[in-house]
């Protein structure tokens, strides 16, 4: 009884995460590549690395005149792949989790998208399947457009990667960082 219950013990992670976000548009396709580095200051471990890349395309490239929400142009279909690249203690893909995930995004309104993405494990270190549901909102603050999460076309989002070579390799949901609208 005297031992601490980890669930009841307040624990604060201190982590620094950086992402190199590359994105290009080729005809009607958006191709995005991310390189991620994260340092957990709460644990004595090195800097973890991860990657993600994805391609997506709207279902229709011509907008209809009708003010509809279920028009094909409001849907974007794509696929993402992401995973860990080890850490400074051991760089590489060995013993890291990797996923492939189809993505469907629906523009619910002019200011918000609904994004659904089931992720499927590619390696034994990964969770077999998981689902990501994301509703980023766009708002306008003091003349600058911002979103409560990043631009989905530019960043391959919500990446459950684990750069380290830990055995459990549980998915880590990385929140999106605020970003400007279009890049």
């Amino acid at each position, binding site marked *: 009884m005297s031992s601490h219950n980890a669930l009841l013990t307040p624990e604060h992670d201190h982590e620094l995460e950086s992402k190199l976000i590359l994105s290009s*548009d080729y005809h009607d396709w*958006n191709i995005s590549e991310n390189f991620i580095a994260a340092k957990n200051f709460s644990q004595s471990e090195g800097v973890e690395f991860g990657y993600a890349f994805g391609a997506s395309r709207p279902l229709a490239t*011509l*907008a209809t005149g009708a*003010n509809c929400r279920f028009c094909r*142009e409001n849907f974007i279909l794509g696929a993402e792949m992401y995973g860990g690249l080890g850490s400074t203690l051991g760089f590489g893909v060995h013993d890291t989790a990797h996923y492939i995930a189809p993505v469907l995004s629906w523009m619910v309104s*002019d200011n918000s998208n609904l994004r659904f993405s089931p992720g499927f494990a590619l390696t034994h270190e990964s969770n077999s399947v998981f689902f990501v549901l994301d509703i980023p909102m766009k708002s306008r603050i003091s003349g600058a*457009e911002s979103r409560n999460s990043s*631009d989905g076309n530019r960043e391959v989002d919500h990446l459950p990667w684990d750069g380290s070579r830990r055995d459990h390799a549980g998915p880590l949901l990385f929140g999106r960082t605020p970003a400007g609208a*279009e890049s």
Partner: protein
Amino acid sequence: MLALCCLAAHLLGQNPNYQPDVNWHAPTEAASRPNPLSSRPEVAAGGRKLFIRNCVECQGKDGAGIEKEHSAALQLPIVQQQSDGVLFWKITNENTGRGMPSFSKLPELQRWQIVLYIRTLK
């Protein structure tokens, strides 16, 4: 009379003081691109919808420009005299100094639709 016009434009939220960015030029090749939708004026309605969705915040509801946003009144000859290719290029490529974002995220045809709609504002 001119002062009254300026006052009216200002009250309506238009941008009578718009000055084009002389350093923002489309490359010659891009400027000469024709609008592939020019023979389909009916798709301008979709361009209007895209304009409302993406451009109204800075360009104003009827494209009259907003002074605070440094945006032009799209009805002005200084805008309408530009080729379709130039307008397409400017929609595609940002001009951060003037607060103009890139809309390259939109499919090409949808950007051409916006150009088509801008032509209806003449």
